[in-house]
C-alpha cells in the first residue's frame, strides 16, 4: 500500500473545511430538531424529552389551522408537481428530440430563465398578472403560480437524463416497426423514468416549501404550511413550530431518499 504522503486522494486540511461546512449547514437544523422534543414551552431551556409539541400540532388550539394548511400544501404540491413534470417532459422531448429548429436555444433559455429571476420579482409579477386579468386570489391562484415556477425545476433533471440517452435507441425502435409514438412510450419514456421521478420530487419539494410567491398570490384566509408557520412565528416562536418544521424536514428527507433509491435501482439494471 502506498504511503499516505504520496496518496493523491489525500488533500491536507480538507477534513477541517468539511467539518466546518457541515456544522454551518446542519447546526441550526439540529437545534430545531432537538428542541422540538423539548418538554418546556420555552424555546431555549431544555427540560427533558417529550412529544407534547407534536401532540400540540395535531390536537392543540392551532391544530385546525395547521391541518388545513398542510392539506392545502400537499394537494397543491401534488397537482403542481404532476402538471409541471408533464409539461417539462414534453418540453424536454421537443427541445432535445425535435431536431434543429430555429428557436431551440431560445426555448431552452426561456424554460430555465425563471430559475435565475429573483423570486420576489416573480411573486410581484404573478400578483400583478392575476390582478390585471381579474383573477380572484385563492387556492387556484396558488396552484397556477406553483405549476409555473415548478416547470424549470422539473425540467432540469429530465433534460439532463434525456441528454444521456442516445437517439439510436429510438432509431432502433423505429427500425423495428415502432411508430414515433411507440418509440416514445415504449423506449424513450421508460429510459427517462428516473429523470422524470427526480423532476417530480424536486418540483414537489419546491412547491411544498415555497413561501414568497405563495404569500403574494394567496387569498385572504387561505394558508399553506409555510405561510401558516410564518403567521404563527409572527406571534412569537413556540416549540410547536419546531415540531412542524421537523416534520416538514422529515418529508423532504424521505422524498430525497426515495429519489436516490430509484436512481440507484436504475443504475443496477
Amino acid at each position: 500500500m502506498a504511503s499516505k504522503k504520496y496518496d493523491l486522494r489525500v488533500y491536507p486540511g480538507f477534513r477541517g473545511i468539511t467539518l466546518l461546512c457541515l456544522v454551518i449547514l446542519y447546526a441550526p437544523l439540529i437545534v430545531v430538531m432537538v428542541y422540538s422534543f423539548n418538554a418546556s414551552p420555552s424555546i431555549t431551556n431544555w427540560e427533558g424529552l417529550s412529544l407534547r409539541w407534536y401532540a400540540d400540532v395535531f390536537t392543540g388550539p392551532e391544530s385546525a389551522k395547521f391541518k388545513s394548511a398542510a392539506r392545502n400544501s400537499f394537494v397543491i404540491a401534488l397537482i403542481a408537481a404532476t402538471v409541471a413534470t408533464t409539461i417539462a417532459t414534453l418540453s424536454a422531448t421537443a427541445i432535445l428530440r425535435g431536431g434543429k429548429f430555429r428557436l431551440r436555444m431560445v426555448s431552452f433559455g426561456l424554460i430555465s430563465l425563471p430559475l435565475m429571476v429573483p423570486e420576489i420579482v416573480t411573486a410581484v409579477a404573478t400578483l400583478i398578472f392575476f390582478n390585471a386579468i381579474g383573477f380572484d386570489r385563492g387556492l387556484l391562484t396558488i396552484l397556477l403560480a406553483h405549476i409555473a415556477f415548478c416547470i424549470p425545476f422539473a425540467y432540469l433533471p429530465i433534460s439532463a437524463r434525456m441528454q444521456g440517452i442516445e437517439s439510436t435507441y429510438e432509431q432502433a425502435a423505429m427500425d423495428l416497426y415502432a411508430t414515433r409514438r411507440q418509440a416514445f412510450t415504449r423506449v424513450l419514456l421508460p429510459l427517462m423514468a428516473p429523470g422524470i421521478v427526480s423532476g417530480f420530487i424536486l418540483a414537489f419539494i419546491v412547491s411544498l416549501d415555497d413561501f414568497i410567491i405563495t404569500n403574494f398570490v394567496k387569498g385572504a384566509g387561505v394558508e399553506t404550511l409555510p405561510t401558516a408557520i410564518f403567521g404563527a412565528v409572527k406571534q412569537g416562536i413556540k416549540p410547536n413550530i419546531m415540531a412542524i418544521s421537523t416534520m416538514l424536514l422529515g418529508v423532504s428527507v424521505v422524498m430525497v431518499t426515495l429519489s436516490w433509491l430509484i436512481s440507484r435501482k436504475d443504475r443496477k439494471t
Partner: protein
Amino acid sequence: MLWRRGNEHLGGTGVTSRTNDAIEVRNAVKRYGDFTALKHVSLTISDNEFFTLLGPSGCGKTTLLRMIAGFEEVTEGGIFLFGEEIEGLPPHKRPINTVFQNYALFPHMNVLDNVGFGLEMLGKSKSEARARAGEVLEMVQLTQFSARKPAQLSGGQQQRVALARALAPRPKVLLLDEPLSALDLKLRKAMQIELKHLQKETGITFIFVTHDQEEALTMSDRVAVMSSGEVQQLGDAREIYERPRNMFVADFIGETNLIEVTVDRIDAGRAACHLGGGHRLTCDAVDGIGAGASVHMSLRPERLFLSSAPTEGESLKARVRENIFIGTDISTILDLDDGPEFRVRASNSSRGTSRVFEPGTEVFVNMEQGAARLLMD
C-alpha cells in the same frame, strides 16, 4: 406479413415492377448544405446476396446505409426495394432491419423482449413474439441468456442479441453498420464466419458496412469500394483485390507497391512501361490507358519473389535493405537502382517460392503472371 403497415404507401408510388434486385440505388445524391456526402451513386444488390460497402470513414457508406434504412432522406434519386420505391417511407414502414454499430439494445428490456420487440410492433401477440424470439435466440446460441438485461452480457453476446433482434421479424434486407468493430480480433474473426453462415441459412440479403478491407473480402459475395461519396469499384473479392480499377482501390485493399510508370507502347494487349532508373516492365494493358500515359502501377508484394539470378520472366535488379518478420510472412524492403522502394512478401514457410536474402545483397525481383496492374488515377 412485413408489409402490413407499408402496403398502401408502396402501392401508391406507381412503380409496381417487381425485380429480383433486393435493393436498387438509382442515382442517389445526398447533400448536407454545401457538403455532398454522396455523388450520384447507383448500384443494385441482388436478393440473397452478402453485399459490403467498404471505405474509409467519411466515404459515404454509412450515409448510404442510413438512406436505405430510412433515417436519411435522399436529396436526389431513388431507392427501390424489389422494384418498389421506398424513398419517403419512414423507417417503421420499411421491411428492413438494422444491426447498429453500438447495438442500441434497449437497456430496460431483457434479451427475450429485445428480440421480440420488432414482432410486437408488427402486431404479433406477446406470446407469439416471445416464441419467435426464442427461436432466433437459439439460432445465435443465446437461449440461456433470455432473461438477462443487455448490460449483463459481454460485448460478443450483445452483438448476437442485436443480430437476433434484427433478424426476428424476417426482414427482406438486413443492414449491418460496422457491427463487429467493437469486438476483439479473435471474436471478430469467429463472428465473420458466423455472419456469413447466418446469411446463407436465412437467405436474407445482407448489406454490411465496414472500413476493414479484410473483413469485407472474407464475408462478401460482392463489395462496393467507396471513397469521397462515390463507388470506386464494384465486384467480388477476387476482382477487387486482383484487378483494382484505380489508385484508391489498389491502395485501400491490401498492401501494394504503387509505382509511377510511363507507358511506352501498347502491343497485343500488353503494355510496355518504364519506371525511374530506366527499369522496364510489361503488363496487361488496361482500357483507357494508352501509350504515353503517366500512371501508377500496382505490384502486390506477395506476388513478387526474389532470386539471386534473373529468371525468364519479368525481373528487376534491386538491393535488399531490410527484412521484417511478421509471423505468417516475411516482408523484405528493397531499393531499386535509381528507382523507388519496393516491398516483397514471402510466406514464412520452407515451401515458400521466395528466398530471404541478407540486407545488402543484390537480388532480382521477379513477377508472377498478373502481379503488375496499371491503374487509373
